[in-house]
């Protein structure tokens, strides 16, 4: 696999001039959709569609060939079949293109003949030092540079989270879940067959990319697993990396081989060795998005001691299940915190269990009371991070502003878990997340988000784990 330097990849992600080779006028063909996507995404550079017989597509002048384009292009997006792709890559190399994105399938994943074709593709590219995204990929999005080169035209909110995905379908799942969770995406790289640009190369690039703060990875398998885990570990010492590895059942190899031509390898080896290198792993796309969301919004905690404030017990039980497995502890509260809680609640014999998790039950419904309790827990120096659970109600208002105030005052990470649907929480979510406080509506997501913050808090800030 080529070792393309991160600097060498910059013009692939931030091109000024892009050729779309194999553009067509038919709206259900990739060659149309990629051009549509680039235009719809608001690309500000120049776009040069290429096709020998078309004059104009989507209002753009079409060039007969790469040589007809009046100036050198930085990137070519190739929407041809697998055989023509190989030839086009050779042409791109000769024309001094700096990188190509190849969507076509029909390579290594299809068997020996396809594998030969892919070897030809790679050797054509490497003759010219040309990095290839793909083949067999959804494409790439650089939202920071308004460059959407997939065949799914979209516009997504901008943010600090970048995603590297082996699968287009799971890639789209992650992107859409991120949109639903109210977070933005910085870059999306569909690595596909990883022909000469693999996971490790993408991680190297994203490590040096200042607009990326958090990296999420979906991986089925790679022939370069050793380098991938070492690179992920190195990058994770600088910015958080969250990995979702699929293909965990025996026999998954059969499918991953025909998907992207890589064997899944042992799931447990990946998991254990990623942990050895200090990388946080998750078990689903929704956990990946939850973890990335918290890491993108919140400061890292100083340690692994989690406070939970709620007025309903069940969610805290579910959270503790997840947190305990992730090495978090639920510390006891200081006596002065308990006194402060009693004062806030104001009853002589409150029907409240005065410990962590603090379940204020019916006394926790009022916004000022809830806000006061959140402050009391954040003030406790036994607590490194607070999870606040509150149920959506027709009559009571969600204590969003109180929670933002508490977070600002103590500067400790806070994750809010409102129990309700998105429609009911939407305004509060926007309000909270603009203030940097992530909101979830499922305790499992809140817990994995907290576990991710604690993982990188103890790792990057060196606070260390404590047994309580």
């Amino acid at each position, binding site marked *: 696999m080529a070792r393309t330097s991160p600097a060498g990849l910059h013009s692939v992600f931030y091109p000024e001039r892009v050729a779309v080779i194999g553009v067509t006028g038919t709206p259900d063909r990739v060659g149309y959709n990629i051009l549509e996507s680039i235009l719809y995404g608001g690309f500000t550079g120049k776009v040069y569609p290429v096709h020998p017989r078309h004059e104009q597509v989507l209002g753009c002048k079409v060039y007969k060939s790469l040589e007809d384009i009046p100036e050198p292009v930085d990137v070519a997006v190739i929407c041809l079949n697998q055989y023509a792709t190989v030839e086009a890559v050779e042409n791109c190399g000769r024309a001094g293109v700096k990188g190509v994105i190849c969507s076509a399938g029909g390579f290594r994943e299809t068997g020996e003949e396809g594998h030969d074709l892919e070897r030809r593709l790679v050797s054509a590219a490497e003759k010219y030092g040309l990095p290839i995204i793909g083949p067999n990929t959804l494409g790439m999005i650089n939202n920071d540079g308004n460059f959407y080169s997939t065949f799914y035209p979209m516009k997504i909110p901008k943010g600090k989270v970048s995603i590297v995905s082996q699968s287009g379908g799971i890639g789209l799942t992650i992107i859409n879940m991120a949109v639903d969770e109210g977070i933005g995406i910085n870059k999306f790289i569909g690595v596909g067959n990883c022909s000469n640009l693999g996971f490790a190369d993408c991680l190297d690039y994203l490590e040096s990319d200042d607009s990326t703060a958090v990296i999420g990875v979906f991986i089925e398998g790679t022939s*370069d697993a*050793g380098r991938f885990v070492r690179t992920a570990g190195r990058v994770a010492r600088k910015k958080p990396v969250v990995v979702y590895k699929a293909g965990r059942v025996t026999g998954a190899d059969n499918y991953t081989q025909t998907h992207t031509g890589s064997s899944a*390898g*042992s799931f447990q*080896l990946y998991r254990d*060795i990623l*942990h*050895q290198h200090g990388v946080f792993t998750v078990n689903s796309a929704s956990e990946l998005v939850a973890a990335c969301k918290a890491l993108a919004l919140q400061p890292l905690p100083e340690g692994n001691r989690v406070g939970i404030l709620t007025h309903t017990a069940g969610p805290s039980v579910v959270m503790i299940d997840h947190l305990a497995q992730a090495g978090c502890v639920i510390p006891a509260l200081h006596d002065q915190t308990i006194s402060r809680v009693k004062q806030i609640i104001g009853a002589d014999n409150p029907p409240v269990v005065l410990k962590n998790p603090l379940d204020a039950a019916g006394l926790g419904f009022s916004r000022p009371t809830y806000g006061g309790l959140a402050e009391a827990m954040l003030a406790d120096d036994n607590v490194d991070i607070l999870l606040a659970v509150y149920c959506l109600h027709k009559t009571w208002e969600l204590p969003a502003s109180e929670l933002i105030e508490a977070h600002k005052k103590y500067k400790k990470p806070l994750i809010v878990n409102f129990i309700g649907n998105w429609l009911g929480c939407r305004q509060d979510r926007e309000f909270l997340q603009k203030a940097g406080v992530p909101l979830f509506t499922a305790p499992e997501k809140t817990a994995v988000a907290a576990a991710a913050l604690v993982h990188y808090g103890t790792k990057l800030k060196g606070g260390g784990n404590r047994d309580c």
Partner: protein
Amino acid sequence: MTVDEIIGFAVASGRNVLFEDEAGALLKAAGIPVNPCRVASDEDEAVRVAKETGFPVVLKVRSQAIAHKTDAGGVRLGLTDEGTVRLAYRGIMEKARLIDQDARVTVHPMASPGVELLVGMTTDPQFGQVMAFGLGGILVELFKDITFRQVPLLEKDAVEMINSIKGSAVLKGYRGRPPVNTTAVTDIILKISRLVEGEPRIKEVDLNPVFAYPEGALVADARIIV
């Protein structure tokens, strides 16, 4: 003999699985505590070595043709006197000589029982040399309570391996039993990691069981593939 000489001799003899006496010598050269053994070529020698070793002893078949000694009826434990050694020797050889005229036995002192652990190394096509640790003996197959780390390991990796298996409570003293010396176990893990890192000809190491005791640890069975 040095590690290099032991491996060189096996390879020159056309074997990729080391005999257990060779594996033992190799581990000893790497500073790893291993239950000692000596080779016996006939029944009388087996008896003489057993007497010198001190009863009870263990007899194991030593044959290039037999990869899985226990499955081939080639392991006899707890032999307490000359008579049982003679019987065991004949029993082992009856089967072994059917497939290998050069079969011999190794004679080992019977290690006192401890917590049975597994320390291993396998060469993965994707990750390269990978260390494995878990509960040993028959429990390995039953519970698959094993954890892996990529070579080379740091000390914290070895400590985490021990703490991360589900059965780690067994090591910390369970139901009134004294805790075992986990430092001795991490020491074995780290020494294997260093050994295989420096000797890439070693493809696989399977130490099972390793007995862990309150005062230390001892490799009771070793299988090394080059």
